[in-house]
């Protein structure tokens, strides 16, 4: 069982009573002279200097909760759920977070509790990512983890989970990924990510500033996003629409003085408007491979795996090669392939399945096929 020091217990008390309302906690600390002073006053039953806007019940609940038995109950409960608390005075508290405007008082962690990782890079992107977004998220997630970085993400559907999954499955990294939740650390949301959640708990860490058991609420997510950027040295944006949660995270990153990277997309793609906009305004560095990011942090490697595909076409028949060439020029539907190549539909269907089976091409939404 993890033992919490006196100071840590004080933070636990504050974190459990005030919750994720960091502003309120900061004001309390400021008014009462610090965490230990606040804790002592509460225990002695002395009058606490409350902020003006504090809820009426606050002083009562602060006093009720400061007993040893209550804090013991908290720690026992966390122990049972395999949750570790990392407070501002704990060793594992990420140094990078201390730099931001309103660092959380307590982080609840499932998995590895030392959050000071070597090279944390946030990988974020749209939940409704395109095939391109999926591919890029997978590439960057995997390659960053392979190069020793830690992929920080939000366990959302789409880019986030794809990047995290690819990072978590990378063998030699002992802290490949951290997921920051907008709910309690023991609440899996969205439910589709349950398997990934377990994988990350095992390989990396799932963290949250919300008390265990907190349900996901809409307003939690933008607040959560500040932690994703705050935890990281750099933020890589895979895909983002013009107005999106991903853009919000990118803005947090800029405010917090983090590096922002963006994967350029086609100027006509709706899902690349946000990323291209970041590049255009000079707020983000455009990245073409993983070394463009690592270079900024002094990580150099001789082996450069470029995202540009180089498929071996020697095994293809001449018909297949013709279709492959057509698809190289951009995604196409069966109809378009019919027009370009003059083969019948049934033949094209046949060639497409063959190439799909060998993994050379794949189906995309909207009836299209791509390399």
């Amino acid at each position, binding site marked *: 069982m993890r033992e919490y020091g006196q100071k840590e217990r004080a933070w636990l008390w504050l974190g459990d009573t005030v919750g994720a309302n960091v502003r309120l906690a900061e004001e309390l600390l400021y008014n009462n002279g610090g965490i230990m002073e606040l804790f002592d006053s509460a225990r002695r039953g002395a009058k606490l200097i409350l902020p003006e806007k504090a809820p009426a019940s606050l002083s009562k609940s602060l006093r009720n909760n400061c007993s040893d038995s209550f804090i013991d109950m908290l720690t026992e409960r966390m122990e049972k759920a395999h949750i570790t608390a990392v407070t501002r005075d704990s060793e594992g508290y990420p140094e990078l977070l201390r730099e931001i405007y309103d660092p959380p008082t307590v982080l609840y962690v499932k998995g590895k509790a030392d959050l000071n990782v070597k090279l944390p890079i946030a990988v974020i992107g749209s*939940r*409704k990512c395109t095939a391109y977004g999926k591919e890029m998220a997978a590439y960057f997630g995997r390659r960053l983890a392979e190069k020793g970085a830690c992929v920080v993400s939000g366990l959302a*559907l*789409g880019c986030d989970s794809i990047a995290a999954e690819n990072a978590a499955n990378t063998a030699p990294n002992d802290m490949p990924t951290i997921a920051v939740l907008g709910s309690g650390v023991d609440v899996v949301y*969205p439910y*589709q990510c349950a398997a990934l959640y377990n994988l990350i708990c095992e390989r990396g860490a799932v963290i949250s500033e919300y008390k265990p058991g907190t349900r996901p609420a809409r307003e939690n997510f933008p607040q959560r996003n500040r932690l994703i950027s705050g935890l990281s040295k750099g933020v890589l944006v895979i895909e983002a*629409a013009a107005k999106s949660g991903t853009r919000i995270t990118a803005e947090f990153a800029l405010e917090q003085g983090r590096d922002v990277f963006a994967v350029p997309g086609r100027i*006509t*793609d*709706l899902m690349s408007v946000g990323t291209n906009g970041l590049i255009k305004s000079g707020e983000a560095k455009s990245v073409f491979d993983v070394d463009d990011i690592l270079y900024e942090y002094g990580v150099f490697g001789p082996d450069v795996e470029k995202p540009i595909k180089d498929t071996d076409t020697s095994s293809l028949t001449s018909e297949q090669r013709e279709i492959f060439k057509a698809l190289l020029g951009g995604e196409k*539907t*069966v*109809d378009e392939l*019919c027009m370009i190549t003059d083969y019948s*539909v*049934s*033949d*094209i*269907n*046949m*060639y*497409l*399945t*063959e190439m*799909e*089976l060998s993994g050379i091409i794949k*189906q*995309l*939404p*909207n*009836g*299209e096929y791509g390399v």
Partner: protein
Amino acid sequence: MLAKLNSYGLTGIEGCLINVEVDISSGLQRVDTVGLPDNAVKESKERVRSAICNSGYAYPEMRVVVNLAPADIKKEGTVYDLPIALGILCARGIFPIHAADDYIIIGELALDGRVRPVTGVLPMVINAYERGFRNFMLPYENAEEASYFGDMNIYPVKNLNEACGHFRGTRLIETFPQLKWKDIKVRHTHDFSEIKGQQQAKRAAEIAVAGNHNLLLIGSPGSGKTMLARSIPSILPDLTMEESLEITRIHSIAGELRGKSGIITEHPFRAPHHSASIPALVGGGPRALPGEISLAHYGVLFLDEFPLFPTAVLEALRQPLEDGIVTITRASAKTTYPAEFMLVAAMNPCPCGNFGSKTKECRCTPMQIERYRNRISTPLLDRLDLHIEMIEVDYEDLISKEKAESSEAIRARVCAARKLQLERYKDDGILYNAQLTSQLMRKYCTMTADAEALLKTAYERFKLSARGYSRVIKVARTIADLAGSETIQKQHILEAVQYRGVDEKYWGTR
């Protein structure tokens, strides 16, 4: 005086002989209708009275008893107006008592004596013909409907006076000319040549029709899902007379022939709205009337906005889809209707329809999209053999002069493939590939070695479900039939796999 005439009623889809007996005796003026009449039959005495008076006859100011025998079957509808009126006139001695003995008389009366058309004439006529009746007096509008069936005399009647004159022998009604089945030319309102582009969807439709498979179309609004579905009847093989009569019979019972003449010669195309209830779709109501699936018998049932149908309604389709018949049981009636229809379902890729589009923004959240797609249960999805995505056609495609293949050319291929199947399954009690059981599949779906190896790879690579796997084989069987090949070759499997490709994208499985 007593008069006896023959009329016909319906119990479910079958007709049944009803004797109309009219007795006039002295007493206070009063009319009684006995023999389990429903309201429409009870009210008939008022129509009959006015019709007789307005046709220039005197209504008997005596006691009138009308008996509809057999007395233990419920009598419904308005078909007994004409026989009751004629019975009263006969009992009054207006025409000889045995003049109408071997006639079946059917018709509703208007107050001025005109004869109005009724529903369900064809099943009645067929049943009566089988019982040996050859003379039919029918409302003029119903005559054509009955005239394709067998060698008999149909006397189309326009009003009560005509009917009376006929039986008096003063002015005989000319029999309706018997129509020949082969003279019928079916004109289709839609043709495949009007559909520009959409090669893959058209090919899928051809395969679906050839093997009687069901089809799922996924595409954004305006991608032509409805247009394709509407054109499918034009590539179905022409109806035989028996099929046509069966369709007409069902439609006749449901009253769907009202205002139309004759017999149904075109494959039905039914497109119920997604607010349809279970009784509306599979049949029901107090009289256990046929629903949309039976009205789509030998035709196409098109369900647009498939996921918006209530789940219970969709699940209710599963049994008739398997069996081709549906039995409706109600307190007062139990009927089995045929329901051999081809299901064509259409849906958008997401609630707003723009999912995956590069140019239009999809406004749905991932959760909304998932909820929308999950409304289609996997067992139901598996019953739709071919899944195809339709893409909006470019303007240039639409205006291109080049005409696509006509329905007639496609129909020829479909007919050839269907003929192969009929020949192959003649001893197995099934007609099409879609009906293959796993036992029959082992017998008839022989594959080349490389096709089998390929299927195994595809099964693993594409994570096919067990049902999805057998569907691929059935579709491949049809593709082989279209190509005239006895064994299933590698290329047939390869093509068949494509028609389940959408599943992985949308539902995570194939």
